[in-house]
């Protein structure tokens, strides 16, 4: 393809008219800027519909949590917020121990995110920038482990934590998640491009040992990716269900997801408004994080998936 001649021509639009590129600049540096047609009204209608479908169940969760239990199970379902949000929150917090579950979830997700980010950065750095024997084979193994479903390990793990008396102990859900293959791969992909090998070598020339290099060279360069990975892992650990549901019990020492599963199965004779208030308590913290940091999370998800 005659790249240069095409590049000199002004961008063509769908209606066949020619006009200069919108910002008046040529993007020699970024030939991959993507298609930038202006959206028509239909696009906005469809996107508005998609946003509505995405957000409505969350809105309705809030609505249901603000009504009485009798009102929620009455047809037609309420569409506007009612007066009982605070009562329901108090009840869910005090009677169903959602407060305890919230603290447990925060502890678990926080520890898992911290340790995953730390260990993934170390391993990602080694895979990206350090030559060592067996590196390619080991990296292939890391990637291969991502396809193994948790179902393959829960039966032995359950026997082990039963023997250790760890059922309903938070370490039984933290330890298996200390580091994730996805995190290792994510950090490797980032550091391959972001960390110039000269930087590492210069530090070595100055006599820095590996831990110093990690602290003074790798961490500063990796910080943006570490932040994104931390958020992704936090969200995932917060919402993790299968293994926590087995290792913890709704009436023992549950995370939010386990407590919610217990409520949904009717373990407590509470009304649907309280159940949905529990759901709201489990969702709200993450939605707040998304509202504030959404742009970075979007960036992290897309970069993790495409840079390969």
């Amino acid at each position, binding site marked *: 393809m005659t790249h240069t001649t095409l590049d000199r021509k002004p961008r063509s639009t769908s209606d066949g008219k020619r006009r200069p590129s919108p910002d008046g600049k040529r993007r020699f540096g970024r030939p991959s800027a993507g298609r930038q047609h202006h959206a028509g009204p239909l696009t906005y209608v469809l996107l508005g519909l998609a946003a509505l479908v995405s957000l409505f169940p969350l809105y309705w969760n809030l609505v249901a949590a603000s009504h009485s239990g009798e009102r929620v199970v009455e047809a037609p*379902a309420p569409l506007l917020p009612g007066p009982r949000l605070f009562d329901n929150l108090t009840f869910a917090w005090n009677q169903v121990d959602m407060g305890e579950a919230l603290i447990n979830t925060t502890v678990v997700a926080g520890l898992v995110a911290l340790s995953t980010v730390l260990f993934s950065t170390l391993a990602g750095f080694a895979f990206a920038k350090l030559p060592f024997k067996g590196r390619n084979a080991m990296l292939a193994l890391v990637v291969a482990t991502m396809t193994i479903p948790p179902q*393959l390990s829960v039966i032995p793990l359950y026997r082990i934590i039963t023997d250790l008396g760890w059922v309903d102990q938070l370490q039984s859900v933290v330890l298996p998640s200390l580091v994730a293959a996805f995190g290792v791969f994510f950090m490797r992909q980032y550091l391959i491009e972001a960390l110039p090998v000269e930087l590492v070598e210069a530090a070595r020339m100055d006599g820095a040992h*590996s831990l110093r290099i990690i602290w003074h060279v790798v961490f500063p360069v990796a910080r943006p990716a570490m932040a994104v990975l931390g958020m992704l892992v936090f969200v995932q650990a917060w919402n993790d269900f299968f293994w926590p549901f087995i290792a913890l019990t709704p009436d023992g020492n549950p995370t939010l997801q386990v407590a919610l599963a217990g409520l*949904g199965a009717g373990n407590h004779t509470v009304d649907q408004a309280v159940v949905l208030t529990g*759901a709201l308590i489990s969702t709200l913290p993450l939605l707040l994080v998304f509202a504030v940091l959404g742009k970075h999370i979007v960036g992290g998800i*897309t970069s993790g998936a*495409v840079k390969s």
Partner: protein
Amino acid sequence: MATSLRAAADGTPPPAPPSSPTRRATPPPHSGRRSRLYRWDLRLSPYAFVAPFFLTFAAFGLFPLLYTGWLSLHRVELGGDAEWRGLDNYAHLADSEFFWNALANTFTIGVVSTVPQLLMALGLAHLLNYKLRGRGFFRVAVLAPYATSIAAATLVFAQLFNTDYGLINTVLGWVGFEPVDWESSKWPAQIAISTIVTWRWTGYNALIYLAAMQAVPQDLYEAAALDGASRWRQFLSVTIPSIRPTILFTVIVSTIGATQLFGEPMIFGGSLGVSGGSGNQFQTLSLLMYEKGWVTGALGQASAIAWVMLLLLLLVGAVRMLFSRASRKKLGA
């Protein structure tokens, strides 16, 4: 675990970077002891850095995986001793209508939740790729379901799908439909569960497609436009082929997720969740495994189901490899 997979890149490891360039770091001129320490550091630190991952995987991934395989060849009850049974557990599965029912349900729910999900994600990504006012809002809005947990989303949808008072039947009533029994009838229940999966993951996949679309070289579109290709034509013959690896990746990841489906049917079924509804109408393989292991207490059979799931996923992986090899050949690369 499914989540992490979804965020990961195309399954194959990309070609390793050219291993460290010609100017290898030479040790600084120091005393013998220091330089020996230095060499040890240089040689061993990479292994120390990757060790946490491999130790964690060995303890919580590989060992349990093999142990599950061993258990699947035994008759074991919770807390009891194992008794060698050879392939009996697998033979038993082959004879069990519950197993075939769960396998079929996993497959149908998987198809109903994955195919529309990925098609809609593709369309959504195409729309998000326009120059937009408020693009940040739209992107975060379609990603909001991803922040919602399985449990919370399922509890909300279980209310919306309630047969007697749910909003969905109310709306269907306005349009003149009879109320649908979303929980006890087989297909409606499977559609309802698939809706929850689709709701949670469509926006996420759309953003992955969007990133891939933005990496398609502009030149290709310009050349196609010069050739008189319509926008729809460009979408079909430029966009789709260009992001094929990404599409393949999302298909694989969604398939893995669908194979393990557990939380949505479990919570959607309420007190009947473990058996997948009153007539097992939405019991998946994961639910059957859980029922065998934790309700019946037959750990050997539960382990056999887990290994069948692993074999299914290996099969998917093999198909994937064939596919990507074929497409590479086609492109002449």
